[in-house]
């Protein structure tokens, strides 16, 4: 009994939502109909909460590459990268990612979550190093710090001055200082002032890790991410295959040769199975696609700008400037739950997020734009959000906001 007592509060929330048939956290994609459509609760729905930013889930070249890998290399590696789980495909993808980003080194991990866990836990010695993290960093960065057993200091979100103060307070005997930020933050769709963070971090002799999970392939002229213009000054760059590359896996790229030692020092690299050959093959094919065809990125931005402009026109309370993530804020969890269900009833799936998973006190509905959203999809999204703005005054900007 004692083991389960902690679930009492969760149970009240979870069972209440389940009983009402309105649990945003137990959605099933009953039938996938394409990159932006699936059947949910028996109904064809526009997917706008799937982080398929560059629409690569059904690309012919990626599917063919995955099928070939299945036939030639089998279904799984049955081992960790440290032992028998490194195939030539893993090494090729590491080289291609490094080339794309313009750095010399790259290590592929089993997921994006594991990549950050592996980077932080592998780099940090808790007895002599310290980690400084942006307050709004993703859970995997917090978890990486915890796995490392590191002294972890939070600084104010997107505030280089707040980092500056905290770096100045780090005791002089501390050996390594690792600063962690993200490129685009996934809850609001806001973007880090990376150049300023580079300057502050390096002025204090700290290394900078930028997690571009949501911005890799999307920001910058070449799609290298929010950090593209200062790539030669970034110490570590982490990313995922599960968003713009529409596969699963993650990586840490770096200009420092020492990142190779993560293969020996990082438990999340050593003690989990490596990505299967077909997931590596589809990620590599998607990388080839997005690297060679900038029109995919341009289409995403066209869709994002169109939706953001339409939502602004509707008076919706938006969290940030135009970005591939467009979030509408609500003061209460109850309003957000009701609005999420309202959208689903109007044939639109988005993500719902509630505190403490959100940056502030607000709950939010998060729309993830895709380059694969068709004009019909965009029309359906604008129409559903238009009805939402009508039905939920709480979703609109008011004098108080």
């Amino acid at each position, binding site marked *: 009994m004692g083991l389960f007592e902690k679930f009492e509060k969760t149970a009240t929330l979870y069972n209440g939502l389940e009983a009402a048939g309105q649990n945003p956290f137990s959605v099933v994609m009953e039938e996938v109909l394409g990159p932006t459509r699936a059947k949910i609760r028996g109904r064809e729905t526009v997917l706008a909460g799937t982080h398929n930013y560059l629409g690569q889930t059904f690309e012919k070249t990626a599917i063919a590459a995955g099928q070939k890998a299945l036939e030639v290399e089998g279904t799984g590696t049955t081992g960790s990268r440290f032992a028998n789980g490194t195939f030539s495909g893993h090494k090729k993808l590491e080289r291609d990612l490094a080339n794309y980003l313009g750095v010399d080194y790259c290590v592929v991990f089993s997921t994006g979550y594991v990549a950050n866990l592996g980077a932080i836990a592998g780099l940090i010695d808790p007895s002599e190093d*310290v980690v400084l993290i942006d307050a709004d960093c993703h859970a995997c960065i917090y978890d990486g710090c*915890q796995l490392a057993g590191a002294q*972890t200091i*939070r600084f*104010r979100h997107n505030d280089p001055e*707040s980092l500056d103060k905290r770096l100045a*307070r780090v*005791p002089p005997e501390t050996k390594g200082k690792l600063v962690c930020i993200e490129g685009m933050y996934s809850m609001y769709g806001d973007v880090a002032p990376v150049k300023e963070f580079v300057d502050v971090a390096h002025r204090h002799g700290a290394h900078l890790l930028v997690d571009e999970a949501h911005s890799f392939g999307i920001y910058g002229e070449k799609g290298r991410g929010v950090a593209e213009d200062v790539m030669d000054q970034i110490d570590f760059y982490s990313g995922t295959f599960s968003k713009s590359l529409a596969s699963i896996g993650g990586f840490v790229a770096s200009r420092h040769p020492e990142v190779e030692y993560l293969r020996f020092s990082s438990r999340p690299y050593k003690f989990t199975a490596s990505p299967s050959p077909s997931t590596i093959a589809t990620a590599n094919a998607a990388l080839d696609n997005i690297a060679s065809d900038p029109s995919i990125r341009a289409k995403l931005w066209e869709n994002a700008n169109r939706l953001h402009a339409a939502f602004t026109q509707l008076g919706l309370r938006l969290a940030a400037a135009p970005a591939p993530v467009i979030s509408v804020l609500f003061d209460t969890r109850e309003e957000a739950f009701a609005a999420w269900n309202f959208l689903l009833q109007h044939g639109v799936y988005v993500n719902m997020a509630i505190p*403490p998973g959100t940056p502030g006190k607000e709950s939010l509905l998060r729309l993830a734009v895709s380059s694969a959203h068709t004009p019909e999809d965009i029309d359906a999204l604008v129409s559903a959000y238009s009805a939402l703005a009508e039905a939920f005054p709480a979703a609109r900007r008011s004098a108080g906001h």
Partner: protein
Amino acid sequence: MAATGESAPKSGVDEGGPSGGIQEDDDLVFRKICSLLDPLNHTGVKLTRDTDLVADLEIDSVAVLDIVMDVEDTYDISIPVNVISETRTIGQLVDAIHVTKKDQA
């Protein structure tokens, strides 16, 4: 204001440890934390050193970390996340701030 320092047990004095100066400082830190917690005190409970941040005030772990950033900037100290995650009550938070202030003095 639901928060006052009046009911704070003077545990430091009872244990005969800290000097009067630190006791005064202790009250100041306690009051500072109460003033930061006040806007979040939706349950309306009286804030004492024994108030449990999560169980009594029903504020989430991230809200506690945000309050700590205000404390850090007020006292020009850095309190690691791992230290905060081990504190449950206002009193423990006050103590953690004192330890950090001493270490970083």
